């Protein structure tokens, strides 16, 4: 992984996501892992990052079921009659990330338990040049 020649930017993160890889950065100096990736280690202030692929396995830390959706999600068919879950997932490598949460009934959120084990899924939206992959997690 150390030889991957991509800058530690959001564009690289999403390019990897398009390739169905969840990639963070690991500080070679202190060993801490960052997701989303970042070029500068805030712990040791060194710039010695290497790309690190995440297993995609994690646990649910917090979530919500969104009923009043932003325009982007309304365009994807979500809203008052079709709520969706989004949340924060802590990966087994340490860092936590925001992502859509699938595989549960957003209309019955009481049944969703924090700490539930989840795995990353890659959600495809749009086609051709407009195709975008976004991150999700499901049981």
């Amino acid at each position, binding site marked *: 992984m150390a030889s991957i020649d991509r800058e530690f930017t*959001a564009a690289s993160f999403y390019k990897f996501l398009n390739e169905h890889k969840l990639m963070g950065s690991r500080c070679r100096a202190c060993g801490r892992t960052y997701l*989303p990736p970042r070029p500068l280690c805030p712990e040791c202030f060194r710039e010695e990052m290497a790309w690190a692929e995440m297993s995609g396995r994690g646990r649910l*830390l*917090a*979530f*919500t*079921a*969104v*009923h*009043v*959706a*932003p*325009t*982007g*999600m*309304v365009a994807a068919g*979500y809203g*008052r009659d079709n*709520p*969706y879950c*989004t*949340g*924060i997932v802590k990966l087994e490598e340490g*860092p*936590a*990330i*925001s*992502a*859509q949460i699938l595989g549960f009934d*957003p209309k019955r*959120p009481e049944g969703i338990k*924090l700490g539930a084990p989840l795995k990353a899924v890659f959600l495809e939206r749009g086609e051709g040049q407009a195709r975008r992959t*976004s*991150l999700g997690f499901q049981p």
Partner: protein
Amino acid sequence: MKAKARKLGRGVALVGAGMSKFGSFPEKTGRDLFFEAFRELLASVDKGFDPREIEAIYLGNYSSDLFEGQGHIAPIIADWVGLAPRPATRIEDACASSGVALRQGALAIASGLYDVVLVGGVEKMTSLPTERVTDVLATGGDALFEIPAGFTFPGFYAAMATAYIHKYGAPLEALMRVGIKNHKHGALNEKAQFNLTIRQIMENKLAKAKAQGRPLPSWAGELDFLRDEAANPVIAWPLRLFDCSPISDGAAALLLVAEERAKDFTDKPVYLIGSGQASDGALHSRPELASIRAAKLAAQEAYAMAGVGPKDIRLAEVHDCFTIAELIATEDLGFFPPGEGWKAAMEGLTSLHSPRPINTSGGLKAKGHPVGASGAAQAVELWQQLRGQAGPRQVPGEPALGLTHNVGGTGQTCVVHIFRRG
């Protein structure tokens, strides 16, 4: 990082304050709202003063660009109230914009640069439809890594609520109690957007249903009303409509002067004795989701500067953009131990007649939350309370110390101020 005891270079006093009515005003722009606040500020200065004495203006505003199509709003507002060509600086820290503007105004005086500074906040939000307001507010989060996940502003606080409830076993009723209490306070504040208790809102709905010959809902009381999906729909579970502060228009203004000049303006100044501010990353980057780290750090700095602790604070205006935020705030500020804030809310330990009332103004929930004006408006409430001028919601016994807690976004910015009766 431990906050070191910082001191202001010289003392700062609040000698005047005003705010517009908060609400939805289709005929009013940001500058009209700010003028209302400024006019009230002028009238509030006991010994009167010439506005030409103002040397600079610091204005909190989140997003006049997106809400009103007006960027560069600080000089526009300065000119509108006759203060051009004085330096006019806009401060943008999301919902903490004018709390931070207050701090910047205080620092400008403490540095010795100015003796008389106008601090303000303004936001005109209601021109946009709700979905677009949702989009604009969400830009206060991380546009690259949080918003693409589908997070909305209520969504962030809803997620914090699930973490808080999971960790401490709080019932949803605790959230409802915050809303009921803040509406009770708001009913005593003529400037509040919701100048009504939740019981009054419920009774108005019953009366309307009756007048229209519709079947009458059988709500046994406020809690029953708040549990009804039709009356109180989910916005972002577990937060419902009455857990959320409204979309608001409004403005607030504060007159700060160097301590040695205070008596030229009033014999009853309010001294700003503590100020603290901190920042943080995206919500998912934090080790704890049932608390706001930057709020704790800002509070530590403000307490250390003022030389007081949470027990000395007689009343506080805290950033209840959502009901869960008030529970977390009362813990982050040290008023209650972690996990005890919800019990205090259930027991009425934050209401007007408790030893330390929280959000006597009605808070963001009932008073309204024109985001860039909210921090300054919190200080307007303390100005009135610490001078014994809060009318029907006056905290009894001549309160000496008050605190304001203003949060930007999910806690990426927090600013805390402590005020002392002069």
